[in-house]
């Protein structure tokens, strides 16, 4: 069984009474557990929207077409309430964003522990898990620093530690290397690959960076709200 099985995913964003954006026109996608997949395309192609739906940040539209299906780890996600989606996000998913998105008033350790708390782990256990997660990305000694005291690369690694602290089934990255220079970007990519290979975590990366795509097992290309190509990467290019 695949980790993600989805058909007929559509999403329209209503901006005002008259204007709306058809971000996703109808997408079918399956992703197996353990895959590392890049979703690529120009802006407006709907790649971020697809990630938002797969990450349960938004629910797929049910009108204007056939009923969508979305099964994540066997669970039907189309009829979930906001609270239920939030709960699954907390426990089974980890997010990494382009602009790091750490809470500025919290230390690195507290940022990571926050994700653990939201998944139901209590205070001291959460901090223990946070420290372990930071250690696995090589930032154990920076645990007590706040985001503004960390470099961009370090912040992104904290974000990865946060995404991983609950040992999620799925890691979603929205342009995770977008704000980093090439060596930091390679570092971040390396971490994602390592966790994908060693822990079998499924990784989904939205990107427009060809090198990032080349480092993944599979590339899904999108344009104008539809998938136009879905190919395996022949020999995965990755320079450590």
């Amino acid at each position, binding site marked *: 069984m695949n980790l993600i099985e989805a058909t007929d995913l559509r999403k329209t964003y209503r901006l005002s009474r008259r204007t709306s954006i058809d971000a996703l026109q109808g997408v079918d996608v399956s992703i197996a557990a353990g895959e590392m997949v890049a979703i690529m395309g120009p802006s407006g192609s709907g790649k971020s929207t697809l990630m938002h739906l797969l990450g349960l*940040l938004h629910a797929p539209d049910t009108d204007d077409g056939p009923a969508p299906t979305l099964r994540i780890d066997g669970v039907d996600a189309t009829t979930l309430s906001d*609270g239920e989606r*939030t709960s699954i*996000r907390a426990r089974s998913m980890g997010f990494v*964003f382009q602009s790091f*998105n750490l*809470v500025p*008033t919290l230390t690195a350790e507290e940022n990571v522990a926050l*994700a653990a708390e939201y998944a139901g782990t209590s205070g001291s256990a959460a901090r223990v898990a946070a420290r372990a997660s930071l250690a696995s990305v090589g930032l154990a000694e920076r645990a007590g620093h706040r985001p503004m005291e960390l470099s961009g690369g370090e912040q992104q690694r904290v974000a990865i530690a*946060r995404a991983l602290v609950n040992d999620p089934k799925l890691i979603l990255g929205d342009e995770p290397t977008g704000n980093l220079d090439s060596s930091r970007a390679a570092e971040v990519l390396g971490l994602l690959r390592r966790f994908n290979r060693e822990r079998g975590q499924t990784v989904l990366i939205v990107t427009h960076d060809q090198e990032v795509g080349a480092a993944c097992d599979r590339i899904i290309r999108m344009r104008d709200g539809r998938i136009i190509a879905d190919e395996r990467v022949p020999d995965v290019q990755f320079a450590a």
Partner: protein
Amino acid sequence: MRILRELSRRKLRTSLTITGITIGIWALVVFSSLANQINGLVGMGSEYFADKIVVTDGMAFGSSPMRLDDVEIIAGLDGVGAVQPKVEIPWDPDPAIGFGAPDFLVGTIPGADAGFETFTLELATGRQLIAEDTGNVVVLGSTIARKYGVVAGGTVDIRGESFEVLGTLQPTLSSPDTNGFIPLSTAQALYLGDLPPLVAESLQADELANQIVVFPEVGADPTTVAAAIEAAVENSATMTGAEFSETVGATTVIFNAIIIGVAAISLIVGGLSVINTMAMSVAERTREIGIRRAIGGSRRRIVRELVAEAGVIGLLGGLIGLGLGAAVVVLVNEAGRSSGTVLFDLTAQTAAFAVGFSTILGMVAGIIPAWTAARLDPVSALRYE
């Protein structure tokens, strides 16, 4: 705590908001303490007057003389248990204008109440007056004793003459604190001296009283007895415990209402200040709220976190307001204590209520901004700059 760290992000704004609550709580503490004291005194007064009827001259309350003969007449009426004649005159015939109860000399015959008086006066030093005492002897209420710095065995000057202090009393938080108790005969002599010569000519000291305290028999209705007294004694006016409570009660209700009104207004203003601050804080942290929601923070959790912050603002305002209010209460009470003017009674309940109320006020004020925050769409919130 993380909340304190969050609040110190915007120190000036948080301080101003806390100040708003502080002012409201300060007002609540000070005015409630004032109300506590007044209600307490009224309560004691009501207690004192509850079981007795005070008979005075019909024309001018307490200042014109009555006769001891009236005592006999009253004693003979139905329903009368005991009759106690009194002479109450100002300590100082030309009293200076001051705040609080002026000092009085109270002349009685100890024991005339025949055991009906339930309001006990506890001794601090020395002994109480007895029926056999005559001459220049006095038992002092606690406030007067403290003012002149005497205890039993000392002397005190009253109207130019030296009086031996037989004893001093414990504080009662009521009129006895500012009374000096002397033998009836001594008081009668002084009273005669106070009266205008034209009136004094035709009177003798030993037949005078200016107040007659009547204790109804057990089971007798004070109102009926009072009416009988007024009928039997020429030119008399009576006041029962019920009448006292009514008169005083009406005033205290108004007074308390004013106090509560002032405090309530201050607190509404403080509450609005918290709402405003939390709304601004939430707007500034839109992105952060989006992050929390994205990584799995439920709406309920976000609301809880923000309401807790608002509650801490309320709590801090309450603690500081209580501290400042307590400072005012203690300072003013100490300043007035020697002249018997203890204006405030800050009880533990008032203190606990003030802090509890301010915390809850903060939390309630934080609910709407918190709820707005929780309803944000995480994705758009994340893109917010």
